[in-house]
């Protein structure tokens, strides 16, 4: 007996996305696709969410935010990286300020590539995530707390960044 698959509440965070993927995610909520008919709600509160949807890649400004949001979500939880920037960094992967895809920071369960990812592929990604979510629940997997404490650069940033 599981209700997780029938009521996945997503939580969307725009890392350093160009807004292309964000608009496609919001398109999923419109009458055209209407994901609420599957019980999917865009919550905006990590404590109410089951699926963490991230668009865009990691940079210095958002790495702590992503970790904080991920740590605040109650188990079981899954992460969906939407768009090629979230998957690998995309065309920005070699920029001086981009650390790469979301998986450099938090464990990603489903990758939805595309620039921008189509609403159909985003919905497909969420549905795939439901399988992972159910597996995590049945195996009672507890996600680890993600921190930056071991990171050597952390000390430099505390002193004001570039050195």
């Amino acid at each position, binding site marked *: 007996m599981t209700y997780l698959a*029938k*009521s996945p509440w997503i939580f969307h965070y725009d890392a350093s996305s160009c807004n292309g993927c964000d608009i496609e995610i919001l398109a999923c909520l419109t009458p055209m696709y209407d994901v609420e008919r599957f*019980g999917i*709600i*865009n919550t905006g509160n990590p404590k*109410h969410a*089951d699926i963490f949807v991230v668009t865009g890649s990691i940079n210095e400004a958002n790495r702590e935010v992503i970790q904080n949001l991920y740590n605040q979500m*109650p188990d079981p939880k899954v992460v969906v990286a939407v768009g090629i920037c979230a998957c690998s960094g995309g065309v920005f992967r070699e920029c001086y300020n981009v650390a790469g895809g979301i998986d450099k920071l938090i464990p990603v369960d489903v990758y939805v590539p595309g620039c921008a990812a189509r609403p159909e592929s985003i919905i497909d990604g969420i549905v795939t995530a439901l399988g992972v979510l159910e597996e995590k629940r049945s195996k009672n997997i507890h996600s680890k707390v993600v921190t930056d404490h071991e990171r050597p650069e952390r000390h430099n940033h505390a002193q004001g960044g570039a050195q």
Partner: protein
Amino acid sequence: MIDIIMAIVFVLVAPVIGGLVAGIDRKVTAHMQGRVGPSVFQPFWDVGKLFEKENAVVNETQIFYAICYVLFMAFTGALFFSGGDLLLVIFALTLSQVFLVLGAFAANSPYSYVGAERELLQIMAYEPMVILTAVGMFVATRSFNVADIATTTIPVVLLIPGIFLGFLYTLTIKLRKSPFDISTSHHAHQEIVKGVTTEFSGPSLGLIEITHWYETVLLLGFLYLFFGWNPLLAVVAVIVLYLLEILIDNTNARMRWQFAVKSAWLVALVAGFINLAALYFLSGGVS
């Protein structure tokens, strides 16, 4: 004996009815917005899901307050449906709401605080009108007992139309519908990051959902009392009025809390007091 049975029936059946009402609400809302919408059983699945999640709270006492919230709401409803004293029902209802506010204040979070303060303002906005409703019922039927009011032969709504309209106004606040969904909302899932429920997650959030179902049934019961002399008419009126609330919810933008408090008090003062005064003078004073 019958009152104890009614109380037990309420505690067991009200969540089912309340959940279905919430599901129908979501379906009708979706149709009004040109969407298909979720199944009418979606609220049950949501709550089932919440009970499968981890109970991550900032402060353990939050769980205690959430449990008190649901217990006192069930107690209020049981008191009402067993035909108890209307004034006691209203005070127990307020006590239950206060536990929700305490639960939100128990977590040291700005969003939770904003939600709790807004919830307090909402209580302040609707409370005068709710008490006036009880007074109006007494003046019309000469009884505070729900059992007497529900089985009266007096057409209550025709005697206190002003109080009825005022109660409808506060019902929008109580049901957390636009334009008065200021402490937490069913639709705007991102605004003030869900207000008073911000710091609740998993099972404790599920309890708050169930409490809301209890409350919905209780409020529909209040509406029934206005039409108690004709049960068939009463049921039809309750359904029509709830659909009206959904329509109001979908056609109004959210107002500021200042407007909610001022307008609710103004309605209570004008519609409620004029109605009471007229009734008092026409009946030649309370005998």
